[in-house]
């Protein structure tokens, strides 16, 4: 049989009939093909009003996805967009142009070797992001813990703006590192700060030039962090730090600090506005802590961690190391319902959203789902005008009776690495909604090993035309050639996520069209994608395993 794989999502064109002439920009291509990667609803994290400042168009596009929108509005939206997409001519990006877009944010880190050997269980990682929002709302972080062993990697998917994701990406790893530090080290650090001596470095960051830290807030953030470690010193339990506990504590503490900072405010008006933006926007987080063979994944929200496992026959399989916190997760729905009175059972989850609004069921920030109505009103009223003028911040979610409805507490999964565990993929939902994890495992696995387990094709008794066969063969060839184009596994994965066609191979034309969508349209066809691919060192892991045996 011809192993034509098709893991396509249902075509949007089937779900939402949209006449081709309404897409003048892409009218010359097969609309169904372009639409096939379009996700049901991209602005799903928050289905109501979006940013503090936004265009009419963005407002409309948001509205389009509001759960209760009416078909008529939908139609209006398309009428509006015609003005935007008025360039009738076809234009394609050349392969070098496509590559420059795909590679703009790519970053690779190779764990340095000592004495010609890499003794770490991590060989290195590749990361990349492809914006759909402008500016991008995803963030990523990677750092090596300097006072404890281990490496931290995380992806953060912001919603209602990028402020919260940005803050979490800067701060969370410090909270985790501090949570992991032994008592003596905490004391040493505190003493150094107290006496104005140089601080022990806690983290070595591995950052792409585009990954920025806010200078203005650093003092504020530092003070909050210092308060945290002072409390840890006071609490000194004397027990060795459990990683799982440390992760949970760090997540919760940071979210708490975000909330407190917004309530307290800051005399500096810029900072005051900043902390409010951070608190009123939201972010999911998926963080990995790797120390030897111990891999911990702490996840809050619907980003995902996946382990790539190579089977004995050389094929690739995927193991989930996180659970999505959303309406598709029964346990999560159950948890939310348990936390609130039975009377709210029906209003808690509507249209697969928390209170009919929010897609992730856990998140940082989003104080609109955490604070009491009184607190929200007080803060907004006393806040700066920008905040006061914004309809979104003033808007109280419907059926808002027993806050908090949302938590930043992560679910932590511990996994002992085995030699067959070759890599870890951390990615925001922008990836997972376009690709099945099994395909992700295969594509990354084949990329990393350079081996392409392409089953030979046999026609057998099937009815195949020359044209079909030709299409299939061209795709298979493109699949191989695309591997050699990328030096970064995350880039390679993004290429597939955006450019894959019905055969599961990269179609340049499609890739080009997807990437040449204007800012206003891009968000409709894809979400921000952020990916970190961590490659494990099987030799070290194997050796560790043997020692333990």
């Amino acid at each position: 049989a011809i192993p034509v794989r098709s893991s396509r999502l249902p075509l949007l064109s089937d779900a939402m009939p949209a006449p081709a002439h309404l897409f003048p920009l892409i009218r010359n291509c097969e609309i169904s093909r372009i639409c096939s990667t379009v996700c049901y609803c991209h602005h799903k994290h928050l289905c109501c009003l979006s940013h503090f400042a936004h265009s009419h168009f963005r407002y409309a596009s948001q509205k389009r996805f509001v759960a209760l929108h009416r078909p008529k509005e939908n139609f209006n939206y398309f009428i509006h967009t015609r003005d935007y997409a008025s360039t009738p001519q076809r234009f394609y990006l050349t392969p070098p142009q496509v590559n420059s877009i795909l590679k703009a944010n790519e970053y690779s880190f190779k764990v340095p070797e000592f004495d010609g050997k890499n003794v770490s269980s991590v060989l290195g990682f590749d990361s990349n992001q492809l914006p759909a929002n402008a500016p991008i709302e995803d963030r990523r972080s990677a750092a090596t813990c300097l006072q404890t062993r281990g490496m931290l990697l995380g992806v953060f998917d912001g919603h209602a703006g990028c402020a919260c994701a940005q803050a979490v990406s800067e701060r969370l790893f410090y909270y985790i590192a501090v949570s992991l530090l032994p008592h003596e080290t905490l004391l040493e650090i505190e003493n150094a700060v107290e006496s104005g001596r140089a601080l022990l470095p806690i983290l070595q960051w591995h950052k792409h030039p585009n990954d920025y830290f806010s200078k203005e807030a650093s003092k504020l953030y530092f003070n909050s962090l210092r308060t945290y470690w002072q409390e840890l010193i006071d609490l000194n339990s004397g027990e060795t730090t459990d990683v799982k506990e440390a992760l949970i504590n760090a997540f919760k503490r940071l979210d708490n600090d975000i909330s407190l900072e917004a309530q307290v405010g800051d005399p500096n008006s810029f900072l005051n506005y900043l902390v409010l933006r951070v608190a009123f926007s939201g972010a999911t987080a998926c963080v990995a802590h790797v120390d030897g063979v111990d891999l911990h994944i702490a996840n809050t929200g619907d980003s995902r961690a996946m382990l790539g496992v190579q089977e004995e026959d050389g094929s690739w399989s995927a193991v989930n190391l996180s659970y999505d916190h959303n309406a598709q997760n029964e346990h999560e729905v159950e948890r939310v319902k348990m936390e609130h009175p039975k009377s709210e059972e029906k209003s808690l989850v509507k249209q697969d959203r928390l209170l009919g609004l929010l897609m992730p069921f856990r998140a940082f920030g989003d104080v609109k789902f955490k604070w009491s109505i009184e607190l929200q009103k007080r803060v907004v009223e006393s806040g700066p005008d920008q905040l006061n003028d914004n309809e979104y911040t003033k808007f109280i979610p419907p059926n808002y009776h027993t806050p908090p409805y949302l938590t930043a507490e992560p679910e932590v999964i511990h996994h002992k690495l085995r030699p067959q565990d070759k890599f870890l993929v951390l990615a925001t939902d922008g990836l997972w909604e376009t690709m099945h994890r099994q395909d992700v495992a295969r594509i990354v696995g084949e990329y990393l090993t350079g081996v392409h387990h392409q089953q030979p094709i046999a026609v057998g008794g099937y009815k195949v035309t020359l044209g079909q066969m030709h299409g299939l063969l061209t795709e298979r060839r493109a699949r191989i050639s695309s591997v050699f184009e990328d030096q970064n596994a995350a880039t390679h994965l993004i290429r597939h996520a955006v450019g894959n066609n019905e055969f599961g191979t990269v179609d340049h034309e499609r890739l080009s069209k997807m990437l040449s969508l204007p800012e206003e349209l891009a968000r409709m066809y894809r979400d921000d994608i952020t990916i970190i691919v961590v490659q494990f060192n099987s030799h070290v892991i194997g050796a560790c395993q043997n020692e333990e045996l």
Partner: protein
Amino acid sequence: AAGMFLRLLSDVRWRAANPKWRRMTCSRRSTSSTAEPHPVSLPAQAQVVICGGGIMGTSVAYHLSKMGWKDIVLLEQGRLAAGTTRFCAGIVSTARHVSVELKMADYSNKLYQQLEQETGVKTGYVKTGSISLAQTQDRLISLKRIASSLNVMGIPCEIITPKQVAQLHPLINIHDLVGAMYVPEDALVSSANVSLALATAASRNGVQIHERTSVSHVSVQKGRVTGVETDRGQIQCQYFVNCAGQWAYELGHSGEEPVNIPLHACEHFYLLTHPLKEPLASNLPTIVDPDGRIYIRNWQGGILSGGFEKNPKPLFTEGRNQLEIQNLQEDWDHFEPLLSALLRRMPDLEALQIMQLVNCPESFTPDMRCIMGESPTVRGYFVLAGMNSAGISYGGGAGKYLAEWMVNGYPSENVWPLDLKRFGTLQSSRTFLRHRVMEVMPLMCDLKVPRWDFQTGRQLRTSPLYDRLDAQGARWMEKHGFERVKYFVPPGKDLLDLDQSKTFYKPDWFDIVGSEVKCCKEAVCVIDMSSFTKFEISSTGDQALENLQYLFSNDLDVPVGHVVHTGMLNEKGGYENDCSIARLSKRSFFMISPTDQQVHCWAWLKNRLPNDSTLTMEDVTWKYTALNLIGPRAVDVLSELSYAPITPEHFPSLFCKEMSVGYANGIRVMSITHTGEPGFMLYIPIEYALHVYNEVMNMGQKYGIRNAGYYALRSLRIEKFFAFWGQDLDAFTTPMECGREFQVKLEKGMQFVGQEALLEQKQNGVYKRFTMFILEDHDTDMDLWPWWGEPIFRNGRYVGKTTSSAYSYTLERHVCLGFVQHFDEKTGEELVVTTDFINQGEYEIDIAGQRFQAKAKLYPFSSLFTHRRRKDEVELSGYQRE
């Protein structure tokens, strides 16, 4: 999977016609049941045993039995026509580059056409014609060259426009075409049925055919075939014919006395489809799209299309491998480029349904020409294999030639280009073959431009000076595994890279070779010519002289120290070899022959010299490095290096002397240059090669010495009208026909091989004459260059073909050499060619369809011999090898 081929093999009525076959068919049927009657037992002896029941084996059996040999057994390990023959595409195409291949294909076509009538077996013969497409102007030139050859052979053929292509074939996309060649008489056959028809006819003529019988090895005694061992017993025989196709190599190596048959199998894929909605007509022309690397024929209403990809998959390198045979699967990914080419050529086929991708291994040879003839080591051991996927096209003609070879001693055509003896043991390394066939298979579709060289299997045999010459900019070509210099690229000058340098026009090395030629004419050049085949023949008494006098046409009983140019002729007076023999002493001779004579000449002499311990022959090719010092100042260089008088009085032309050069002693110096220019050949024991070369170059500096290559040599020899064996001379050319009577001593006091034939020719005149043509209205910069094989027209009528050509830097004209025949205007009968006939004609040379006026000459320009030292001792019409 094989079920579909039942249709190809559908007609089995022919078996019923033959009682013997009915018996065998019965026995085969009962194989599946319990009691299996013994098949017909093998005869204890036969005159000829043929191994292989494919198109080649059956064709040889057919032709041998037609020529009257009846005592023939054909053995097939499986079923008749069940190997490559069964799977091949069945296209009979006469569009071939090499003349003898063209003739074989033409004969095959005519044979197959009447085979059904002759045998009653349906052969599926349909005259569809074929269209070879050109996507580029260069391809069109290549096709026009073939068209010229076909036309003068009387095979209808025309160059047509893309529009005409569209009229001949409804499905072709013609937008990227510049033209095409239409050969209306090309045909399609069911190859298996052709083979079965030939078997039927052979069987009726008495040939015994035994299937399911494997030959394990061939028995040899005293260098002769005595019998074969099979899995069903022994057969004594005088002749064995190896037609084992891709297994021929292994079979050749299975015996105690190995027979090297250099061929190697590659996977070959073609596609079969279901019929079109409106089934294709069975007489629709076959399409060959060499630029797309594909062929397309109609097949049962659908199409059959395959091709020759750039990255072939060789197989069975380690010998026959049962696992590999079973695993021969369709490889669609491999076929993708060919499928793309097919859909580009016929876009309407997109919706056509695939039936199967057939993987049919084909065997390929190191030079893309098939292998035919008798083993040089085992007499009576004949070979016909290595068809380079043109088995059906060649089958009939090749079988005929081999049968003639066995019955008459030689075929009716010159088949040297196909002769097994063009190869030696050096071409039978499996690694070499594997690498080379990967280059050869893509060449099937590559543009065949003049002077291309194989890139694989190189640097096998080299001169000790190889690295020195290479460092000085040498560019290399290969002959018989030996690296030879084409020319030297001066420092700081770059030539085009390989692919870009392919041209039918003026090549990029034109000026480089020009300056080398100039240096040969005005100063002195050194050319490394170590690849020449060198034998030493000596005896205790006069046996050597006596035998050589019989085997060579010139008089070898010359004073010691003389060099004699002589032909080694066959009974018909034709050149088997053309060589120079130096008499080293009363009883020993030093013989120099062309490079590719190493195997052939050795076998020829071995078979004819008495097996006598007092007469020894040794191949000393590897012992000597040969340097050719060409030019008027060669004499100065040599005399300074040797302190010996080399004036013409002391060292006349055609003289050989052992002397010292520099510190090295025992250098054989001969006053010949193979070009007609003054100078010397130095035969240097290899350990002195570097020393002598350095000395010559140092000393020569003040005389303006420089390195030169074979292209310069070639230009020099052709402008002097020197013929060269293997190109101009062959077994069907006598000294009388090429103006070399003076190299034949008809009255040397004893008989010699070919004497009678030459005497007869002397009396009756010759039927072809080697002639030199100077192109008159040819623009070297703008016009297509001649190569060889161009038709010659006299007063508008075809009279022959050129055999070699070169640009003469002295005459500033192109010179073509070729043979002129005289056909009776009415009957076409061959008439005697007289000097007047040559001189009284207006000539034209046809280069790819364009005719250029040419002046014919029977003698070289005397003005070219300004440097000669003694009028009577000039190497007039010496000889030349390339």
